[in-house]
């Protein structure tokens, strides 16, 4: 949920609630104030009537106007509390009952008591209150609308530095070494965000760099002891009188050392690719390199009784480092030989759609999407170290090539689209 939506979810009901309650209160206060006014008028009217009686000794005439009626009713009461009441009186002309305010009080004329009643229409007052309320509500509604619209624009403008930073972070790629460009802003919060982001990225980048250097150095350091182990094994093998059990031990030692050595070399290669040690990209004749590589491997394939069918377009040029091109081809093609069976075949196509290498083989037992991950390998291929495809992927990622692996119709298919 967006921040503004979350804010509005709280803000709108509260605003509307407060407006409703205050409108109701406003209505009643206005009503009371105006009613007070009417009551004052009625009191003045009462004083006038009393004054008239005191002056002239007689009651003034009863009157009957549309908005004010005065009448006198003889009474036997000698005591009567003045009272103010509301009343609805039916208006014949307009055929509706209208609200009136009524005052009843006792008046004495020549020893006779009368109840004087003054009815004063409050229709207009009511109308005014409603009108005022309507106008107020309308103004508030318009205000609210304008507020929301401006909020939208102002807020999206206010959040712009934040969104910019976010966008930069999304595009940030640690291994691609691209710098992020944070837009300067005068908002303190965003300034702090940018400063923190910048520091964090610097720290992460330098940590990543030192980790990569460490990996590379460690891999280099491992090579010498590995060389010693392998060479000592080789010397041991030259002994004339080894028995079967000893041979088995030596064989296992040798296999393990070789595995370790291959793994180390592949890891080193991955680190080197990531450390951009193969950065000089050049326009290379990929067809030529591929053909040369396949020719070199043809005897190997035939020793394993595997046929290579190739369909390679001439002079297919791409921008790539030549060493990486060889590593790429070697990994894909050697995989196709390694994960094959005697009597199987390999199809290699190079054309406008890119490179496609497919080979017969048994179905992989793990998800095909996972095969690009480091050390992920099909359990069936025990002699593989599980780094070949991840080297291919690392190279392809570096050059934004699209690489895919699928198992279709009993064939392993690796496709690389050079975009």
């Amino acid at each position, binding site marked *: 949920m967006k921040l503004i939506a979350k804010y509005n979810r709280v803000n709108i009901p509260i605003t509307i609630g407060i407006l409703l309650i205050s409108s109701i209160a406003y209505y009643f206060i206005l009503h009371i104030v105006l009613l007070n006014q009417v009551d004052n008028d009625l009191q003045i009217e009462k004083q006038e009537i009393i004054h008239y009686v005191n002056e002239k000794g007689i009651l003034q005439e009863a009157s009957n106007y549309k908005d004010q009626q005065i009448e006198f009713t003889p009474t036997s009461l000698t005591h009567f509390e003045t009272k103010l009441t509301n009343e609805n009186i039916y208006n014949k002309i307009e055929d509706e009952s209208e609200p009136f305010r009524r005052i009843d009080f006792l008046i004495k004329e020549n020893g006779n008591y009368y109840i004087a009643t003054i009815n004063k229409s409050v229709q207009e007052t009511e109308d005014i209150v409603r009108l005022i309320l309507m106008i107020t509500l309308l103004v508030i509604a318009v205000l609210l609308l304008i507020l929301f619209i401006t909020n939208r624009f102002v807020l999206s403008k206010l959040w712009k530095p934040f969104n910019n930073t976010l966008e930069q972070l999304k595009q940030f790629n640690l291994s691609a070494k691209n710098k992020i460009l944070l837009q300067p802003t005068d908002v303190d919060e965003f300034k702090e965000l940018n400063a923190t982001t910048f520091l964090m990225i610097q720290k992460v980048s330098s940590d990543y760099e030192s980790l990569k250097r460490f990996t590379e150095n460690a891999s280099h350091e491992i090579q010498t002891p590995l060389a010693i182990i392998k*060479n000592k094994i*080789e010397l041991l093998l030259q002994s004339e009188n080894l028995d079967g059990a000893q041979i088995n031990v030596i064989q296992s030692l*040798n296999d393990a050392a070789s595995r370790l050595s291959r793994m180390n070399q592949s890891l080193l290669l991955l680190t080197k690719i990531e450390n951009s040690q193969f950065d000089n990209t050049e326009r290379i004749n990929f067809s030529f390199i591929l053909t040369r590589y396949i020719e070199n491997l043809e005897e190997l394939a035939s020793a394993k009784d595997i046929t290579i069918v190739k369909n390679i377009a001439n002079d297919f040029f791409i921008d790539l480092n030549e060493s990486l091109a060889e590593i790429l081809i070697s990994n894909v093609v050697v995989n196709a030989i390694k994960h094959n069976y005697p009597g199987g075949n390999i199809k290699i196509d190079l054309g406008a759609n890119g490179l496609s290498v497919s080979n017969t083989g048994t179905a992989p037992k793990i998800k095909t999407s996972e095969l690009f991950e480091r050390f992920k390998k099909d359990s069936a291929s025990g002699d593989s170290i599980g780094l070949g495809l991840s080297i291919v992927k690392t190279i392809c990622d570096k050059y934004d090539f699209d690489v895919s692996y699928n198992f279709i119709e009993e064939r392993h298919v690796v496709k690389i689209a050079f975009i």
Partner: protein
Amino acid sequence: MKILIIEDEKALSESIAEYLAKQEYHCDIAENFHDAIRKVEYNDYDCVLLDITLPDGDGLKILEQLKEDKKTDGVLIISAKNSLDDKIRGLNLGADDYLPKPFHLSELNARIAAIIRRKNFDGKSIIQFNNLSIDTQSKMVTVANNPVELTKKEYELLLYFISNKKRLVSKEAIAEHLWGNDVGGNFDFIYTHIKNLRKKLMDKGEVDYIKSVYGMGYKFSD
């Protein structure tokens, strides 16, 4: 034949020396930069094995020194770095070959043999083993003057065997020599190459020199 091994790792230089000694090479060992500089200055070697990452100096400086002194020693760089830059720099400075660690002693031996063959070029491009002779210049193989038609890999295999004659050469070392170190895994397919090579030689009346040893590798001997 005199070889100088410049390598700070004692265990490694000893293994190399032991293997090479049996190939009738005389080996000197230099464990550090200064020792190495002194030795190359006062002696002439057929081949110098140079580890370029020495604790007390840049191995490539020794190479420069050799070239300055106009020495004709063959130089084989052995490096833990397997870096393309180092390789190119080394070869540009006049090194003959570059071998990354870890390596097979048989591979090292074959490379040294190739360097020495190239250095002593004067008419010595023919390797003789009983009736078998290999002309490394024209890549011709003959058995008692009968030419043998070998494929590129079979030729390389034979040369590798001859360079390491009377030694056990592991299947893995053969596979890596022929196909580079990325073929990995199971090396049983080497048998097909061996079988073809053996058949071609025996068809010309040659003795079977290639013997399988312990199932781990092969030995070329009479």
